[in-house]
């Protein structure tokens, strides 16, 4: 396995932001913050209004690391211990299902 550094303070801060985002989404649009649900609804939207808020949340999520890059000067680490064939074989399996 790839060794990673224990980051209690970053993880506590990041965890609070994740919690804050889900509370804000519940307070404003009364939706549960679940990426898969938001993504699934994005592919089969009920109407444009429903699609647009999902798309905006997704774009916000994707631009998160870019914001971190601008503030901290580097991208958050993404280290993948599984081989490239693992996710791609899963992709083929799912696609052929």
């Amino acid at each position, binding site marked *: *396995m*790839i060794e*990673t*550094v*224990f*980051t*209690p303070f970053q*993880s506590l*801060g990041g*965890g*609070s*932001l*994740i*919690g*804050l*985002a*889900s*509370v*804000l*989404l*519940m*307070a*404003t*649009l*009364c*939706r*549960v*913050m*679940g*990426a*898969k649900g938001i*993504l*699934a609804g994005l*592919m089969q939207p009920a109407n444009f209004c429903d699609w*647009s808020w999902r798309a905006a*949340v997704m774009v*916000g*999520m*994707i*631009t*998160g*690391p870019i*914001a*971190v890059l601008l503030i901290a000067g580097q*991208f*958050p*680490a*993404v*280290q*993948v211990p*599984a081989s*490239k064939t*693992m*996710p*791609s074989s*899963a*992709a083929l399996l*799912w*696609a052929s*299902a």
Partner: protein
Amino acid sequence: MRILISYPIGLIFGVGISISGMANPAKVLNFFDVAGTWDPSLGFIMGCALIVTFIGYRYVLKRPAPYLSTGLQLPTRRDLDLHLIGGSAVFGVGWGIAGFRPGGVPPAIGTFRTEVLIFVAALLSGIVAYKLLQTAIANRAQAHA
């Protein structure tokens, strides 16, 4: 108006995932590798997110209506069925193999890594396949009825 609100919410989520280390599969998998390269960070992320959500939801759900929406979109079912338990189990296996989960992936897309893009393609195919299967089963049930 909804977009103006939902973009920063997604951004806060994405920054949270990025800072916490949850977009990093190695860090996620190391949480479970207690005997090896153990990294307890994930416990801190989940614990903190859970506490904030628990307190925040209690306050928010006391309000008569959300700020920008009229209808309630809360899950109402309280029973545990085969779908929920089976789905959670499959989710866990997938998370354990790859270290990626749907929540951690959109922020990881922003780093433009090949593995992440492959995972997203797989995830989208999986969602489409499930929808097609669900429709096929519903159609068959209707034909038999």
